[in-house]
């Protein structure tokens, strides 16, 4: 049976100063979901819930068909997890870690592991304590990828990496995606990386999912419309406007449902319509929802 790789329904997790509330999302086999949110939005909490490292206060989580966190041991057989915060055991070398992981996962691909060691310029004899931040991320990624997992859960894996290292890591993800049955849940606040590899994007802010959609859908719907109004003329009531900035006779409108009909409503006052990149969409989306919630 081909289960959804991740399915969360009405998940709630409360801490003293933070609550992840009513989180529902799903990840299909072969899909790459970018999970984007500002710092403290609940990205890591969500990913740890998916890994069974923490349990929800309410709601249901199924990963690779296993109920989490109860069946986490079975689910994690097929999950590769990498987090920017995660560290290897400080008193052991990378080579020891590779042997250790290999002894647990029969699917370990030694040839691929050796290729990754070379590609990432790592040294198996190096002690984990002496690895730089970038080397640490690459080492944990190597340990996760060489197991050939069906699902990769990546918690801000490119944090702290220089542009070259980021390129190497992202290229490796692209390689993983050649296999249609493997999926990735990728959290980040770096929208450039997310935009590059994701099929689907979920925005999260202050513990709530703000919006979830296909990447192309986001990029198609969101527009910035620059309007110049002559004196004494005002705009009609416009639907789906989520942001408005006025500077004298110049008005910049942000819409999350652009259509030619909307443009026609504004008429000849439109000076320019710009596509927005994912970062602009993310910021506008978050700010709109914060205002709507009265935050």
């Amino acid at each position, binding site marked *: 049976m081909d289960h959804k790789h991740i399915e969360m329904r009405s998940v709630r997790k409360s801490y003293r100063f933070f609550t992840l509330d009513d989180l529902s999302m799903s990840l299909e086999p072969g899909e790459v979901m970018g999970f984007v949110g500002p710092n403290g939005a609940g990205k890591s909490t969500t990913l740890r819930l998916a*890994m069974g490292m*923490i349990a929800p206060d309410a709601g249901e989580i199924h990963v690779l068909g296993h109920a989490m*966190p109860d069946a986490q*041991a079975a689910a994690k057989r097929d999950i590769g997890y990498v987090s920017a915060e*995660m*560290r290897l055991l400080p008193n052991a070398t990378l080579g020891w870690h590779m042997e250790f992981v290999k002894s647990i996962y029969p699917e370990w691909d030694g040839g691929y592991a050796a290729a990754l060691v070379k590609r990432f310029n790592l040294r198996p004899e190096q002690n984990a304590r002496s690895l730089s931040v970038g080397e640490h991320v690459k080492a944990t990624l190597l340990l996760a990828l060489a197991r050939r997992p069906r699902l990769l859960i990546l918690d801000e894996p490119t944090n702290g990496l220089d542009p070259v290292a980021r390129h190497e890591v992202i290229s490796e993800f692209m390689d993983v995606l050649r296999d249609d049955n493997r999926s990735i849940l990728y959290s980040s606040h770096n929208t450039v990386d997310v935009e590059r590899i994701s099929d689907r994007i979920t925005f999260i802010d202050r513990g709530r999912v703000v919006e979830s959609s296909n990447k192309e859908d986001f990029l198609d719907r969101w527009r910035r419309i620059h309007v110049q109004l002559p004196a004494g003329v005002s705009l009609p009531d416009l639907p789906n406007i989520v942001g408005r900035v006025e500077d004298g006779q110049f008005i910049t409108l942000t819409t999350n449902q652009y259509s030619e009909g909307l443009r026609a409503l504004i008429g000849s006052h439109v000076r320019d319509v710009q596509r927005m990149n994912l970062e602009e969409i993310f910021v506008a989306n978050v700010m709109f929802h914060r205002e709507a919630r009265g935050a």
Partner: protein
Amino acid sequence: MNIVIRKLIAKELYVYRWLIAGGAFAGVASILIASLGKGGFNIGALTWLTTIIATGVVLALYGIMNERKEQSLQFVLSLPLSISEYVRAKMLGLFAGFLIIWSISCAAALVLVFFKASVPDGLAPYVTLLSVFMLANFAVVLCGALHTQSEAMTSAVIVVTNMGVSIFMFTVGPLPGLQKHMWSPAPVWNDTFWTVLGCELAVLVIAFTLPFIFAARRRDFL
């Protein structure tokens, strides 16, 4: 026992191999010092006690608290195991590590008692009780460190258990059933000995079992 638990137990022994080897060596070296006359005996006995207590504390602190603090716990928890399997592996791995240090050091102390003419064999029951006390003490530290997620609470457990060693020496040592025979040429394994040993074993069993019942059922481990 599944392969992941076995590998994690082996991991504890590997990661702390130098501490374990150093602790065992220091335990034996302390006994050698203790065999060098009266002054040596006092210094050696103190070093022996300190070695066993300190290595136990370091094992618990590094094995549990530092793993959490340095974020390598995330790496371990990303492996295919449940929280209860993690707790089981951690308890067994660290306990096995400490057991190596403890058994070598305590065996060396008993060898000194039985084979060194100037040390009366009558000390054997007291040395045995002190040794088992330190094993129980380690189990309590381990239990505390696995139950609490706070470094401050673990430190408090360590302070209390360290004080426990002094309290043991001040209260159990003077027990008439033990003190009377301490300097005898032959060991006396009387009711007092068995009662104290029974209490120590009870504490050991409880402290060793509690994490399997409570910490293993925790649903949040980060």
